[in-house]
């Protein structure tokens, strides 16, 4: 059966939005502190586990688990940032990569220990299941929900960064950290808070993503490349770039799986490599 282009676009957009919600925090923190954090996916995984545990064990409604996942992951990332990451801001990216790969391994094994090796069962509330057919396109309600979440997150980020005082501080710190520090902005604190928010978003993404991409202890490794692609292709620190890169990645990945399954993820990686050769700093990166 040939899948219509509309369906592919819709599903790809939903998937892309999810990738955006998870990855955007990584992009901003990498742009801000130049920290190569490969463990970002572990934060998303933690958010997912917080949500499933609350739903399955404590019967908390799904929508309520989302803010809790955000807060819990933000708090966990605060501890990690203060305890570990901060020591390596000045180190080379090799050290950062190694430390965070180590953390990924620990997170994967830890999640296996606590939650077991299998996929987490999850039951979505009835109002988020089902499917409508609009103009010949099958619109899954859950995917629509994901797109709305993505739009809400984008709006919040754009408004927060463009219109608030704190957003101005972030922009100043990204542009020139030393100058910002010189103007009396506490760059360390700005970074801590940004890092928490970004990790919290990853946690939120992990929680809303379970229904689409599943959740098992291999999550941080399986999707690490996707998050990194979004960041690298979009350009460090660029929200617009992350959004466009995530949507492109989502659409191409879904389209590739529908139309040319025998080629697999090959195209995605090849396109990424050639894109980075064309623009090493990403689509919207500076330098």
């Amino acid at each position, binding site marked *: 059966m040939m899948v219509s282009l509309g369906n592919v676009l819709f599903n790809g957009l939903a998937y892309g939005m999810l990738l955006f919600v998870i990855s955007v925090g990584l992009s901003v923190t*990498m742009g801000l502190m130049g920290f*190569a954090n490969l463990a970002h996916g572990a934060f998303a995984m933690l958010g997912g586990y917080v949500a499933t545990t609350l739903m399955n064990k404590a019967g908390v409604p799904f929508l309520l688990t989302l803010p809790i996942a955000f807060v819990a992951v933000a708090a966990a990332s605060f501890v990690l940032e203060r305890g*570990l990451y901060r*020591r*390596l801001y000045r180190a*080379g*990216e*090799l*050290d950062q*990569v*190694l*430390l965070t*790969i*180590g*953390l*990924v*391994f*620990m*997170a*994967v*094994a*830890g999640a*296996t*220990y606590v939650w077991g*090796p299998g996929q987490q069962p999850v039951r979505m509330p009835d109002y988020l299941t089902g499917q409508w057919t609009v103009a010949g396109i099958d619109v899954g309600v859950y995917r629509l929900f994901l797109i709305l979440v993505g739009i809400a997150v984008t709006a919040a980020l754009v408004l927060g960064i463009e219109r608030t005082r704190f957003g101005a501080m972030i922009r100043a710190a990204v542009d020139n950290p030393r100058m910002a520090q010189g103007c009396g902005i506490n760059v360390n604190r700005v970074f801590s808070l940004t890092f928490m928010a970004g990790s919290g978003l990853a946690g939120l993404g992990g929680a809303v993503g379970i229904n689409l991409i599943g959740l098992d202890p291999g999550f941080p*490794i399986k999707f690490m*490349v996707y998050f*990194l*692609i979004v*960041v*690298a292709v979009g350009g*460090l620190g660029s929200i617009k770039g992350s959004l466009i890169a995530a949507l492109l990645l989502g659409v191409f990945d879904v389209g590739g799986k529908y139309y040319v399954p*025998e*080629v*697999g*993820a*090959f195209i995605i*990686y*090849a396109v*990424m*490599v050639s894109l*980075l*050769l064309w623009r*090493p*700093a*990403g689509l919207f990166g500076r330098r």
Partner: protein
Amino acid sequence: MVSLPAESPPASDTAPRGRPVTRLERRSRWRWHEILFWLAAASCPLVVPDDLVLVSQVLIAGLFALSLDLLLGYGGIVSLGHAAFFGVGAYAAGLLARHGWGEPVSGLLLSGALAGLLGFALSFIIVRVRGIALLMVTLGVSLVLHEAAVKGYAVTGGDDGLQGIVLDPLFGLFSMDMWGRTAFGYSLAVAFAGFLLARRLVSSPFGLALQGMRENSRRMAAIGAPLRRHSALIYTVSAALAGVAGALLTQTTEFVSVEVLGFQRSAEVLIMLILGGAGHLYGAFVGAAVFMIVRDQLAAANPEYWFFWLGLMLVLVVLFARGGIIGGIATIAARFRKGGSR
């Protein structure tokens, strides 16, 4: 003198006296602990006759880590996808043997050459990018190859791996035996040859230029060193050596699984090198030995969660022991010497 050969942030006692060539010669002289190291490796059949298969694996992993050491420890180029070359070498050796070219030594060299060729082609790309883009490009290339191997079922056997590899006896005399004696001797010989090559390379003027680039690439550019050409050359050599290591794995195990190209392998080789100490050559082998033995023990004791300890080990090394094992020994030895001379 600095306690370890073929490497050293030039200490005060190696003030540039005399012609630079003699300085290099002095630095590249063999030390007693180096000879001891290789004697110890060669004595494995007498000391641990039952674990020769593991020892061969360590030697192969060590050779792979050595190739990364040239790139990372000397060239200062970080790669998240070094398994690409290991895997290409492994598949090349497997396919050669499967399609009638069963002679091991020439197969090994051909596979290494093929991986080197790929490295040479990619080096034009690698020298153009840095930072996060470099990480992503190296990672991306290995992922492309991994995907190709998984999907190219007709050629590579896909997820089932490449089977039916039959090798001629080594030099027409020794075939691979059950106890891994031939495999051990072969691996040791190849690893030692690779080591000699790497050692020669890093103590040559080219090796010195690489270390200069690692320490301060702007200054090296200012004194007229062709940075890109140096980077491209070390990338090619490193790729070829990694390919040889991969081919060696194929030939000693007579099987290729698709995970030779996987991210896990790229990460593991990085861990081995960092654990042993980058920029020392010996760190590659020491790191490989420690990593594989620890993994063996942990995986036996704790099969589901062993990589938790692996991760912890990595975090601790990064935070507290940046020089790795060899770096730690070098520091202690230097302190000891200093104390003794007072």
